[in-house]
């Protein structure tokens, strides 16, 4: 119980800080909406073409928006040595990881909650429950790995460059599964058709949540 109180304190601190500055959500949301609008003009063809490219467009947008968001995740901890401040607190490194992960997940989901309906309206697509589940599960896996690599990148000089270089190759299987699953969901396919992609996403989430949880302490120690 004490552990979770500290995890939630870290999450709440990040949310409060973000509420004051709106640095992450505002910039990521603007980026996301701009990309969606540009894609909307670029692929102005018939509905069949849009149906075909929509899943790719959606996940390209969310992937790069996510990288933008994750880049900021540890920057507030680096100012005034706050990461060291967290490290001298009586909370395990895993607790710090979970607190930061939950905050990043909230920020990403907030952006997706706004962007997904706009995406559906602009491209004249239906948001099915399957698509929502795929988006949610993919975001969990994405953030689980992203927070780990964000912590790794924070101690490097070119951190904005390092994060995507390290992180994107790892999440490629997750993004491919999300694109394929989203394509089927947008075509109105049943759960049975989507199940195999959901299993891949679920397996990725489970594996990388556990791995990131255990590896995080090595990532933040110099």
């Amino acid at each position, binding site marked *: 119980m004490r552990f979770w109180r500290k995890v939630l*304190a870290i999450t709440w601190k990040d949310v*409060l*800080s973000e509420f004051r*500055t709106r640095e992450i959500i505002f910039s990521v949301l603007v980026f996301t909406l701009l990309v969606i609008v540009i894609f909307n003009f670029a692929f102005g063809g018939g509905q069949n073409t849009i149906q075909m490219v929509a899943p790719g467009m959606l996940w390209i947008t969310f992937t790069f928006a996510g990288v933008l968001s994750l880049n900021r995740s540890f920057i507030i901890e680096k100012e005034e*040595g*706050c990461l*060291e*401040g967290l490290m001298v607190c*009586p909370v395990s490194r895993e607790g710090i990881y979970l607190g930061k992960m939950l905050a990043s997940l909230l920020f990403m989901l907030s952006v997706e909650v706004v962007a997904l309906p706009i995406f559906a309206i602009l491209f004249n697509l239906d948001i099915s429950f399957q698509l929502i589940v795929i988006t949610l599960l993919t975001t969990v896996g994405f953030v689980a790995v992203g927070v780990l690599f964000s912590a790794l990148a924070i101690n490097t000089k070119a951190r904005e460059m390092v994060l995507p270089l390290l992180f994107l190759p790892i999440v490629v299987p997750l993004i491919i599964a999300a694109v394929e699953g989203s394509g089927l969901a947008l075509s109105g396919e049943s759960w049975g058709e989507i199940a195999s992609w959901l299993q891949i996403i679920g397996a990725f989430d489970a594996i990388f949540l556990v791995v990131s949880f255990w590896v995080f302490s090595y990532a933040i120690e110099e």
Partner: protein
Amino acid sequence: MSDSIPLSSGVEVQELTKTFGNNRALRGIDLQVTYGDFLIIFGPNGAGKTTLLKILATIMKPSSGEVRIGGLDLKKDAEEIRRRVGVVTHQTFLYNNLTARENLEFYSRMYDVAEARQRIHEVVNTVGMATRLNDRVSTLSRGMQQRLSIARALLHKPDIMLLDEPETGLDQEALPMLWQALQNEEQKKRTVVMTTHNLERSLELGNHLVILAKGKIVHEQTGISPDLSTLRKVYEETTR
């Protein structure tokens, strides 16, 4: 909180080493700090002072050697050690976008401080920051931020204080406040380990002195403080 296990001993360090690639920052440090002692660590830049303090604060893991703080093993009981240690460095560990109160509330939760509201008022009064509690940290002067950082470090009534050049950024008014807070806060006996460049002032406070050079202890002295000129001479000879 820190009352659960009594601290019978201060800090014990045996054969401590730390390497970064080919760079050996600490080369076999042996150190014994009795509970209640005020240890001053001097040394030129790059001597390993901050690395030693970071290891004691459990921020960094040693490459080899043994460290016991209050009888607890650094490798096995790091979380329990953190509960008993307060850290002040030239960085404040404060979040600029949050108010002073929000920062102290956050750290109170992290340290499981009982009756946090009351304790926050006590520590901000100690550092003379009671009127600025609702101000954002980013609006405070550097000196004010450093005072708030002292309040943060005292929140959980630590048995051991680790101070890494704490006078950096502190205004003239705040320096005596820090020394007084360290000595008098609730008349609590505590062990202090401090790195500093302020030889004169710290000699008045410390009763145990160590000079560190190239990752090694080159001079150690307990009890009677030497006069400043003798110490400067020893410092120059040992760090040459």
